[in-house]
C-alpha cells in the first residue's frame, strides 16, 4: 500500500466541538502535548524523590497519591481532551466516579469498623506487632 497524504482540506472534522481544527491550531496542540510530556516526566521524578524522603507513612501515601492524581488529571484533560469533551461523556464519568467511590469505601469502612470493634473489646492493641522486616531481595 502506498502512502497517501490527503490535503488538510480533504479531512472534514465533524466532531470539532473545540472549534480549533485549523492546521495552525493543530500545530499548537502538538507543542502543548510535548510540554505536558515534560511536566509528566518531572512529576514522575518527583514521585520517586518523595518516596525516598522517609516521610511518615500516611504522609508518604498522601503525597504519592496526590502527585499521581495530578498526573492522571493532566493525561485526562489534555491527551484525552476532556477539557473540550461533550456533556454526555462527563455524565458517564460522573456515574462511574460514584460507583468507584462506593467500591473503595466498602473495604475502607469494613477495616475501620473492624479495628474500632477490636479496640473496644481489647482484642488488639493500637500498635502493630513487632515483626521482622521483609528481607529485601536483590533486584
Amino acid at each position: 500500500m502506498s502512502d497517501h497524504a490527503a490535503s488538510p482540506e480533504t479531512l472534514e472534522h465533524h466532531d470539532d466541538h473545540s472549534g480549533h481544527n485549523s492546521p495552525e491550531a493543530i500545530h499548537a496542540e502538538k507543542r502543548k502535548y510535548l510540554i505536558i510530556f515534560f511536566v509528566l516526566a518531572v512529576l514522575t521524578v518527583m514521585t520517586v524523590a518523595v518516596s525516598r524522603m522517609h516521610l511518615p507513612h500516611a504522609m508518604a501515601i498522601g503525597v504519592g497519591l496526590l502527585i499521581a492524581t495530578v498526573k492522571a488529571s493532566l493525561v485526562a484533560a489534555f491527551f484525552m481532551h476532556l477539557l473540550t469533551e461533550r456533556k454526555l461523556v462527563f455524565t458517564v464519568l460522573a456515574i462511574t466516579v460514584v460507583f468507584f467511590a462506593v467500591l473503595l469505601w466498602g473495604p475502607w469502612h469494613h477495616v475501620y469498623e473492624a479495628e474500632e470493634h477490636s479496640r473496644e473489646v481489647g482484642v488488639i492493641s493500637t500498635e502493630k506487632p513487632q515483626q521482622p522486616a521483609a528481607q529485601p531481595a536483590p533486584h
Partner: protein
Amino acid sequence: MELEIPYTVRPRPDTGLYNGKLGIWLFLASEVMLFGALFSSLVLLRSSAPDWPKGSDILNVPLATLNTFVLIASSVTVVLAWANLRLGDFKWGRIWLGVTLMCGFGFMIIKAIEYGTKFSHQQFPGTNNFFATYYMMTGLHGLHVIGGMIVFAYLIGPGAKMWKEKPNQYTNRVEITGLYWHFVDLVWIFLFPILYLL
C-alpha cells in the same frame, strides 16, 4: 448491498458524539470498575495485614520508573499520530503509530525482565499476598498493553487501507484507540506509586 454503519464520522444528533467515541467511553467506565475492584482489594488486604512490605524494598524501582517514562512517551506519540492524521499527513501519522507500538513492546520487554528476575528469586504469585496483588494488577495491566498493541498493529498494517477511502473514519479509529491507550497509561500512573514506592 453493503450496509453502512451509521455515525462513524458524524456525531449523532442526540449524543453529540460519533458512536465509536461514546462506545469507548462506556467501555472505559467498565474498565474503571474492573481495576477499581482490584485497587479496593489491595486496600482491604494491605490495611488488614499486620505487616506489609514496602514495594521499594522488594521491587525494582529503576525499571518501573523507566517503564513509566516509556508509557508516558507512548501517550504523547499516539496523540501526535492523531494530530498528524487530522492535518492529512498519513505518513507521519503512521510513523507515530509505529513509535507507539514500539513503546508498547519496550514496556512489555522491561516487564518481562522484571518478572524473570522475580521468578529466579522464587517470588511467585503464591508466595504471599503482596506478590499475589503485584502479579495480578501488573499482569492484568500488561494484558491491556498487549491488547492495545494488537489494535495499533492492525491500524498500521491491514487497517491502514481505510485511509484511502475513509480518512475521517480512520482518524476517528486512531482517536478512540488513543483514548484506550491513555487509560492504560492512567492505570499505570496509580499502580507505580502504590505497588513500587509506598
